């Protein structure tokens, strides 16, 4: 190209620029491959985890009323609401009733545990039920045939070999399988794992099926839909009705707590990983861009020599960088969509909710937007120096120092801050946003301070040796030392925080897997059947560990006469006062360890004495001799605490929050629950068959399958979080590589001079290694510490789980610090020096 005498017209400028871009873009993008890799991997991670996390949480958040089944819901266990209360509620809004119970369905050949749900004509108040034939649920259930219709989950058909049109029995009634159940909008309202496939029938039919006997474990849910446009008022009005026997009161915000907890934790973890990937990706991209600009310094000087204006140089390089960014972003987004979509599909299918591609797309686009803003900042920071390369640098081998224009630098910092803020604000959990940004800010601040201190400390030394001299000269450059420390430190910060969180999350998730699970749990055993079944089990050498007890529910209302809401001293134990909790009576000691007090005598028959579990003690600071008021089957009791039982975690055996002495409960209608272990599957399977034949009212829950499923889900989540942490380490390594590469380029010239004046390769390598080790040490210590602290807060405050960072969180920062130093030292020291016969002289004379 030629320089014109006068300033060329703008059109000419644009034409020239287009030509330059056409000539340079391919080589430019090739030169920016490390940059693209950093952008792509960070976009991929951020996009995938955010699309997943945000998709799940917006879906769950927006679906609150749908999951709950109404704007407010109350649940009664065992006993339905009184007519009076029911009518009062019906007067406040649109009321829909459902009843849920576990049962077993009798097919032509065999039985299967099912989760039966009876629904009224108004069900569902929110969302819609999807059935295989795409008809309306109401139409399907209203169909008149020989038998009432039932809509069943496809897995039931798969398990029993039955087909639509076949019949099965529930209790005393026969049902026709009318359709398959594809989506149940309020599935999460159960708030627990399902023991079997869902079966939907009409509520009135269920009520006279004989299945719901007094004392059987049915849950009656009353959902109310607001029609006045003020759901808060409705909630308050329903709450005000609170009857003196307990009910479980729920609003959309507490729908499906148990399942959501896992999803929520995972989502939060994903958000954090996204922020970390973002910060690491940006710092890597910036380092890579800087390396590229430095490599092109000579070319840029030649452009300037031939008459290109600084603006044109900036525009040309910005255009090439924009292309590389776009390519990296597109690659990352495509990959994240490809990963997130099937994962979302699988997770939502499991949760029985719908997801929308639009949500994911919006999320991915916002990730791209946020990243683009950050890249503008990082790119400007890297490019600014290029515009300032003087034409004369061409005559001085183009090695003028690249210093960013302070004006550009402040604009760039503005962009970077904006993108970080945008990233933080679009995080699924707002509290986490502040935390992540704060942590990052503190880490960067500390790294800058430490690097500055190191630079000042070093600059005052006057070393005599060559190695000392090189180290001092290089580390004494505050700006350079700080940027290197920050770039390495951010990576270590993010990786440490995420690995620590991942390790804690894995532990928390595995803690949910029962470690001594029974093989079989029998529900709805009638008191009269207990003795015979116990006998059958004890005679079978293949079965062991039988435990049987009455299975009742109670609601706590007061402690020492103080209403439970006020008596509660531990908010994290508030679940003990939410709705009805497990309750049983026992004449004999259960074998549980006592933390305080003694058991009642086996023949005690006075007014009830109670034995609360550890959790209750913690919730109210209970002591032996205190009194508790509770309601069982609609009757209120006030009893004295005579002992406190130790809690047994993760056994998946029936555990009772409260035990009482036998009277008067043993006379009340209730069923028994039994659990047992099997020496082998054959013994357990044959017991299931015998029970099905002799006692059709009993629901046998095959815990072996449930535990296996749980294990699958949790190991899936664990593996995913591990994968994310591993990917983050890869992103960190990439950004490190970018940094090392940018170092090598600036070192090449120095290494050449050092060999010329008589420094050995060993000396150069040691000097570089010392220098890189100092920076690696700062980055590892500060990045590791801040990452650890950040991880701690994230784990305890955001994930709300125990802090169990594991060894990896300790080793990784150190390992990454060492890797960074050694790589930088070796590549910058040994690698930068020309190698091979004829190379040194070529470069010296070139």
């Amino acid at each position: 190209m030629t320089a014109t005498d006068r300033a060329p017209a703008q059109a000419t400028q644009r034409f020239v620029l287009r030509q330059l871009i056409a000539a340079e873009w391919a080589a430019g993008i090739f030169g920016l491959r490390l940059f693209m890799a950093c952008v792509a991997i960070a976009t991929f991670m951020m996009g995938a985890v955010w699309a997943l996390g945000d998709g799940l949480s917006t879906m769950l958040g927006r679906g609150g009323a749908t999951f709950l089944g109404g704007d407010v819901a109350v649940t009664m266990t065992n006993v339905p609401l009184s007519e009076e209360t029911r009518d009062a509620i019906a007067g406040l809004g649109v009321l829909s009733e459902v009843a849920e119970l576990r049962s077993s369905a009798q097919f032509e050949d065999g039985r299967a545990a099912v989760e039966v749900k009876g629904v009224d004509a108004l069900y569902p108040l929110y969302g819609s039920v999807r059935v295989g034939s795409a008809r309306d649920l109401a139409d399907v259930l209203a169909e008149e045939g020989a038998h009432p219709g039932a809509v069943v989950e496809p897995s039931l058909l798969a398990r029993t070999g039955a087909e639509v049109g076949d019949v099965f029995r529930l209790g005393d009634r026969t049902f026709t399988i009318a359709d398959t159940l594809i989506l149940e909008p309020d599935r999460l309202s159960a708030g627990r794992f399902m023991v079997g496939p869902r079966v939907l029938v009409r509520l009135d039919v269920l009520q006279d099926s004989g299945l719901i006997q007094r004392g059987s474990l049915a849950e009656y849910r009353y959902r109310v839909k607001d029609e006045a446009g003020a759901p808060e008022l409705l909630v308050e009005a329903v709450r005000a009705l609170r009857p003196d026997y307990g009910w479980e009161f729920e609003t959309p915000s507490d729908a499906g707590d148990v399942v959501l907890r896992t999803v929520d934790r995972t989502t939060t973890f994903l958000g954090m990983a996204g922020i970390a990937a973002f910060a690491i990706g940006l710092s890597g991209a910036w380092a890579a861009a800087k390396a590229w600009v430095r490599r092109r310094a000579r070319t840029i000087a030649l452009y300037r020599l031939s008459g290109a204006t600084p603006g044109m140089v900036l525009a040309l390089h910005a255009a090439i960088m924009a292309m590389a960014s776009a390519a990296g972003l597109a690659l990352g987004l495509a990959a994240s969509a490809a990963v997130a979509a099937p994962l979302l599909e699988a997770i939502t299918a499991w949760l029985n909710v719908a997801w929308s591609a639009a949500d994911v797309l919006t999320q991915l686009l916002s990730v791209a937007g946020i990243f683009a803003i950050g890249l503008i900042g990082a790119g400007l920071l890297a490019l600014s120096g290029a515009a300032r390369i003087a034409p004369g640098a061409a005559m001085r081998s183009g090695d003028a120092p690249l210093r960013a224009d302070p004006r550009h630098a402040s604009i760039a910092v503005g962009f970077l801050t904006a993108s970080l803020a945008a990233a933080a604000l679009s995080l699924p959990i707002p509290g986490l946003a502040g935390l992540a940004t704060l942590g990052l800010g503190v880490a960067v601040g500390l790294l800058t301070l430490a690097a500055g201190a190191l630079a000042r400390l070093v600059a005052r030394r006057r070393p005599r040796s060559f190695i000392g001299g090189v180290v001092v000269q290089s580390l004494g450059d505050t700006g350079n030392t700080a940027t290197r420390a920050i770039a390495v430190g951010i990576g270590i910060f993010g990786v440490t925080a995420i690995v620590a969180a991942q390790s804690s999350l894995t532990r928390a998730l595995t803690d949910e897997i029962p470690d001594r699970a029974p093989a079989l749990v029998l529900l709805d055993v009638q008191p009269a059947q207990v003795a015979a079944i116990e006998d059958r089990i004890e005679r079978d050498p293949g079965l062991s560990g039988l435990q049987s007890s009455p299975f009742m529910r109670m609601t706590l209302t007061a402690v020492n006469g103080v209403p439970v809401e006020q008596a509660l001293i531990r908010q994290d134990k508030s679940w003990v006062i939410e709705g009805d909790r497990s309750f049983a009576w026992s004449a004999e000691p259960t074998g549980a360890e006592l933390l305080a007090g003694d058991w009642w005598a086996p023949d005690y028959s006075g007014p009830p004495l109670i034995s609360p579990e550890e959790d209750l003690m913690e919730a109210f600071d209970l002591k032996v001799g205190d009194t508790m008021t509770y309601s069982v089957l609609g009757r209120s009791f006030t009893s004295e605490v005579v002992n406190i039982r130790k809690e047994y975690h993760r056994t998946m055996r029936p555990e009772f929050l409260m035990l009482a002495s036998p009277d008067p409960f043993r006379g009340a209608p209730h069923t028994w629950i039994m659990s047992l272990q099997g020496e082998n599957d054959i013994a357990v399977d044959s017991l299931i068959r015998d029970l099905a034949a002799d006692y059709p009212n009993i629901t046998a829950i095959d815990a072996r399958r449930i535990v296996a499923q749980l294990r699958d889900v949790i190991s899936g989540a664990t593996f995913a979080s591990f994968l994310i942490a591993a990917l983050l380490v890869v992103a960190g390594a990439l950004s490190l590589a970018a940094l090392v590469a940018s170092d090598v380029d600036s070192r090449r010239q120095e290494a050449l001079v050092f060999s010329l004046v008589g420094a050995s390769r060993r000396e150069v390598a040691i000097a570089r290694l010392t220098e890189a080790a100092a920076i690696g040490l700062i980055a590892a210590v500060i990045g590791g510490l801040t990452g650890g602290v950040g991880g701690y807060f994230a784990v305890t405050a955001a994930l709300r789980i125990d802090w169990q960072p594991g060894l990896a969180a300790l080793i990784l920062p150190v390992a990454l610090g060492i890797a960074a130093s050694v790589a930088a030292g070796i590549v910058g020291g040994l690698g930068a020096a020309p190698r091979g016969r004829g190379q040194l002289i070529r470069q010296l004379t070139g």
Partner: protein
Amino acid sequence: MALVLDLADGAQRAQAAPAETVVSLTQARLSYPSPEGEVSVLRGIDIQLAAGEITAVTGPSGSGKSSLIAVIGGLEKATGGDVDVLGVDLNQASESVRTNLRRRDIGIVFQSFHLIPAMTAVQNAALPMVLAGETEAETAAARMLDRVGLGHRLTHRPSALSGGEQQRVAIARAFAASPRLVLADEPTGNLDQATGDEVVRVMFDLVRETGASMLLVTHDPALAEKCDRTIAIDSGLVRT
């Protein structure tokens, strides 16, 4: 081998070869590997340089002048023949012995100045002395810069110096450690006539003052004329 070890201890000044011969090449050969096989660049060179002598090397482009400098400076190992520089057999010497030689006894100047951008003029000039572990490296470097007329530019970085000034920093660096042999490969090639003349004058003065020997590659017949003698190279051979 024993000789080499002695040399490494810095005892080489009193050893070997007649005192007046600082460089002695016998049938020195050098070839470079290339995709088409070995390229023979020096094809049997015989040269003797005496102490205090300034020798010009001339020859067409690509004849092997820079390669000759590289072999004598220990930057490349000859692939054949004997290379004896300042009493050290460079073909036998280890990398560290050759490095040490450059640090203390040989100063090299190229057409490109090869200064470290991040270092000031005085830091650049002091580099070989710092490497040699000398205590007053920067003082000596400052003195040398003053000697080449850059006393007022000590703390400037290369990017703030003109081409001639940068080359004078490179020359100060080459002479700072009081070398016994100076190798200069077209030192004025990047400079205008007047600046080049000035640089050459400084170099000649310094060589004469220190009693060092100098091998000067140049395309300029007038400059070759000023040297004590001229060696013409063509196609890797000394033309007689």
